[in-house]
């Protein structure tokens, strides 16, 4: 009887307004992963367009399932300071009852969409040469071994949360975390064969702009949804998500004109993303004018990091480290500078709180060290079972046909449909292998 009364109380604690907003916010965040597919897909060469987009899309499936079955429990079930317990394994005990003011299931899905895009972010560093199966193995293990623990540290009541680290929507958990994993992955997989010898240009700049625009749209759910309620805090995060990328875009265009004489479209798209990344940890802690300052400031280091990146030995194909790693780092540290009690309740360096500034740096460093080391170990482990890199021929002709059996822009001229009967008797045919090699 008492249990039934508790249950009623729980149901009553669910707020209709909060639930309605969080359902929409969750769908917005999910859209960010297809948006990322367009952003990344437009930046690569035509022969790798599908492979690059599939790296994001596949995360929707693989990470989505892993999150519900295991990852959510490791991140949010009651546990130690370092990792969650197993209470929520297979969503046991995660139902329609209130978690805060929204149904627990909704909170789980909202967090799942974060895990999905964080894994997909890494793909930009290894695009155009990593084997698809090795990539899937890596993000699967990474979500459980790196994302879930770091998420627990900051949002699941772990040691960084107890220390008072501020990370409103995932500057440390999502962007620094993925940025460092990206550097490690790019280092271990190695540079593309053409890197440093040929210009590798974006094959579809309108896709890049489309992706950046949809990322911005989805990011309103990411940041304003992180208030977990339909309230003033959500509105603050929403406004900041509008203003910081706007400032970053303005500064980026200005730097572009100074350096190259023109405002490039790829630069504009990148500036928007960097502004979004930087405001993520700060969205609910700083005022709107501080958000403009933060967005503008954050554009500068990322701009020069990308301008210099062609001279590096490290081939981070789509600049994940400079845009997400560095942008997230700057945003997380500036959160400790601009945080103002009048807005989000916490104070930062500008309000004389040096401790908060130091805690922010500790949180970023902890995520960098842990993510770097474990990502390295996971990739080394996978490389003992399957090669991480596509073979030379696949890389030369592009990964779309060898990995996926399709082309992004197939002409179809001269293509002949093979009847299912003709295939029925034959042994399974590896896709993309010339018929001559199959027969012999």
């Amino acid at each position: 009887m008492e249990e039934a009364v508790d249950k009623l109380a729980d149901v009553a604690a669910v707020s209709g307004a909060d639930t309605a907003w969080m359902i929409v916010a969750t769908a917005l965040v999910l859209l960010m992963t297809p948006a990322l597919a367009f952003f990344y897909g437009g930046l690569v060469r035509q022969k790798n367009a599908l492979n690059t987009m599939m790296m994001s899309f596949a995360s929707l499936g693989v990470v989505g399932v892993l999150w519900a079955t295991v990852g959510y429990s490791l991140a949010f079930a009651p546990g130690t300071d370092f990792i969650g317990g197993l209470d929520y394994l297979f969503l046991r005990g995660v139902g329609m009852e209130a978690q805060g003011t929204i149904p627990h299931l909704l909170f789980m899905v909202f967090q799942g969409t974060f895990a999905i895009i964080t894994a997909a972010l890494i793909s930009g560093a290894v695009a155009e040469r990593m084997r698809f199966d090795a990539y899937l193995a890596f993000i699967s293990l990474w979500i459980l071994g790196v994302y879930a623990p770091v998420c627990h540290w900051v949002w699941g009541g772990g040691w960084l949360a107890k220390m008072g680290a501020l990370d409103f929507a995932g500057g440390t958990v999502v962007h620094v975390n993925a940025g460092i994993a990206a550097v490690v992955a790019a280092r271990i997989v190695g540079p593309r064969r053409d890197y440093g010898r040929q210009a590798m240009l974006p094959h579809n700049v309108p896709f890049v702009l489309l992706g950046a625009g949809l990322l911005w749209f989805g990011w309103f759910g990411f940041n304003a949804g992180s208030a977990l309620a339909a309230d003033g805090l959500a509105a603050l995060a929403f406004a900041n998500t509008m203003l910081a990328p706007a400032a970053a875009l303005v500064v980026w265009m200005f730097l572009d004109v100074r350096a190259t004489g023109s405002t490039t479209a790829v630069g504009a798209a990148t500036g928007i993303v960097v502004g979004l990344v930087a405001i993520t940890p700060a969205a609910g802690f700083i005022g709107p004018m501080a958000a403009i300052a933060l967005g503008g400031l954050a554009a500068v280091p990322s701009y020069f990091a990308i301008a210099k990146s062609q001279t590096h030995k490290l081939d981070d194909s789509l600049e994940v480290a400079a845009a997400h790693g560095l942008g997230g780092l700057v945003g997380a540290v500036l959160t400790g500078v601009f945080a103002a009690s009048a807005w989000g309740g916490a104070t930062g360096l500008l309000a004389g709180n040096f401790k908060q500034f130091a805690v922010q740096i500790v949180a970023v460093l902890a995520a960098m060290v842990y993510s770097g080391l474990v990502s390295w170990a996971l990739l080394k482990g996978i490389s003992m079972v399957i090669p991480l890199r596509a073979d030379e021929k696949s890389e030369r002709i592009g990964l779309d046909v060898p990995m996926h059996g399709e082309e992004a822009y197939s002409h179809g001229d001269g293509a002949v449909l093979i009847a299912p009967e003709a295939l029925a008797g034959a042994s399974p045919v590896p896709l993309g292998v010339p018929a001559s090699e199959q027969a012999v």
Partner: protein
Amino acid sequence: MKLITAIIRPEKLNEVLSALYEVEVRGLTLTRCLGHGGEMEAVETYRGSTVKMGLVEKVKLEIGVSDAFLDAAIYACMHSARTGEVGDGKIFVTDLEKVVRIRTGEQDESAVTPLADLSVEVQGSAA
């Protein structure tokens, strides 16, 4: 004067261009095209339908050269475009009856000879 028509793999284009540049052949026309030269078809799959791709993407280069440049240009194309597998492409050489450079009206040999001073103009540069 000859017209060299080289059909090559798209992924070899950059290497062919730089090889031609090294032997000072700088005037050419490029066409993206589809072709089939005896290589076996790749198999692709679209929504469960298995498809044999009969034609493969190729790049066609057309280069008008004076006789002095002919062998060097052919050699450059051949060596830079080769992978050793079926499908590397072909080089066709045909006689040229007449060449006219539209800008100056120059004809024949002087029309296919590259200009001495190739000045590079960077578009949109404010500097």
